């Protein structure tokens, strides 16, 4: 298959939109200035990917829905992002583990989509692949440093892995199944490098792709959408 359905385009857009919003919460709150800027830059990249995909989904759908309408006027049940990206930031180790899990998945996704015959999607993917690669140097570098750092940083990184592992297999549902082996290889070696233990518990939570979310997404969307919902069409 070398094109994507509107449903699928929206799911990938939602992943990037929600993670951009989560990372945006850390701007002015990160542990140090360089990290603050890095997280802000990463959030902007995710937002840019989301915007391009929303626009493309709207054009593909052909009902005249703009990127803003798709981002600001769809409800929690209509959002089909992964549960992983809506999880709260937690501490910095938690944020970096979430980013690593997602970056490794995005690299497989964009590498694949960059070869699609839908050239708009292929172009967006080719650009996003370079960005995901760049983000992953940051997230994997920090997971290594934290896992292989002090007793305290190791404990926090391991807590992040333990808490977030249950949201990982959702990334590989349906048509994304073939990304799983490469992702597993990447993540296994990253965890070994960081001295972190893989999670033995097979329990996995899913539902995001069908619009069934954890309690956190509603609050995130409420904060993100309230201005447009209170004053529809407002611009500045």
């Amino acid at each position, binding site marked *: 298959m070398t094109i994507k359905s509107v449903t699928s385009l929206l799911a990938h857009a939602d992943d990037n939109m929600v993670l951009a919003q989560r990372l945006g919460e850390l701007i002015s709150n990160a542990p140090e200035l360089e990290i603050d800027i890095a997280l802000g830059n990463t959030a*902007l*990249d995710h937002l840019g990917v989301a915007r391009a995909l929303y626009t493309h989904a709207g054009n593909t759908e052909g009902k005249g829905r703009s990127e803003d309408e798709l981002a600001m006027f769809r409800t929690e049940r209509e959002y089909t992002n992964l549960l992983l990206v809506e999880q709260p930031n937690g501490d910095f180790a938690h944020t970096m583990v979430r980013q690593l899990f997602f970056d490794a998945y995005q690299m497989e996704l964009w590498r694949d989509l960059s070869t699609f015959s839908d050239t708009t999607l292929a172009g967006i993917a080719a650009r996003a692949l370079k960005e995901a690669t760049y983000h992953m140097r940051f997230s994997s570098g920090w997971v290594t440093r934290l896992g292989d750092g002090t007793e305290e940083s190791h404990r926090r990184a391991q807590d992040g892995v333990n808490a977030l592992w249950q949201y990982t297999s959702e990334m590989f549902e349906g048509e994304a199944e073939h990304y799983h082996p490469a992702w597993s290889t990447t993540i296994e070696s990253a965890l070994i490098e960081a001295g972190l233990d893989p999670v033995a518990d097979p329990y996995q939570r899913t539902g995001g792709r069908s619009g069934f979310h954890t309690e956190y997404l509603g609050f995130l969307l409420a904060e993100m959408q309230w201005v447009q919902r209170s004053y529809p069409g407002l611009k500045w």
Partner: protein
Amino acid sequence: MGAAELPGSEMVTAATISIVTARKVAASVVDPEIPVLTIDDLGILRSVVVDEGRVIVTITPTYSGCPAMGQMEDDIVTAFERIGVEGVEVVTVHFPAWSTDWISEDGQRKLRQFGIAPAVSEQDLTCPRCDASTPTMIARFGSTACKALMVCSSCGEPFDFFKPF
């Protein structure tokens, strides 16, 4: 180069503008974050078409996270309005994806003069102030989506590095 300085910049309309003038006007728009570079230098200006009273400017976005893209679209429209051409269409094309290889040689020279090391592999990177080849990275993510922050170990000055992309 602003529209007012363009040769022969008497007022025209979308019906009377020549392709040469249209191309010049579009190519004169600068990056708001790096005002020494035009969108032509950056390689994001893909085409300018004048067709039966319509002017269509096609651009390709740089980094997904570049907030200057929207500003540049507005600036293209404004640059044409300034010489009397209303309703210019700015079309975004994502394929093929932009690369720093598309920055012209002239653009790379201007970047260096502006104090930003142009995109090269990290091994080939030299300080734009003193040309020493021993810079170290301070932060992989710099002041804008397109730049990393370096410091020169010879002259001690920090400088921006355009990320190879």
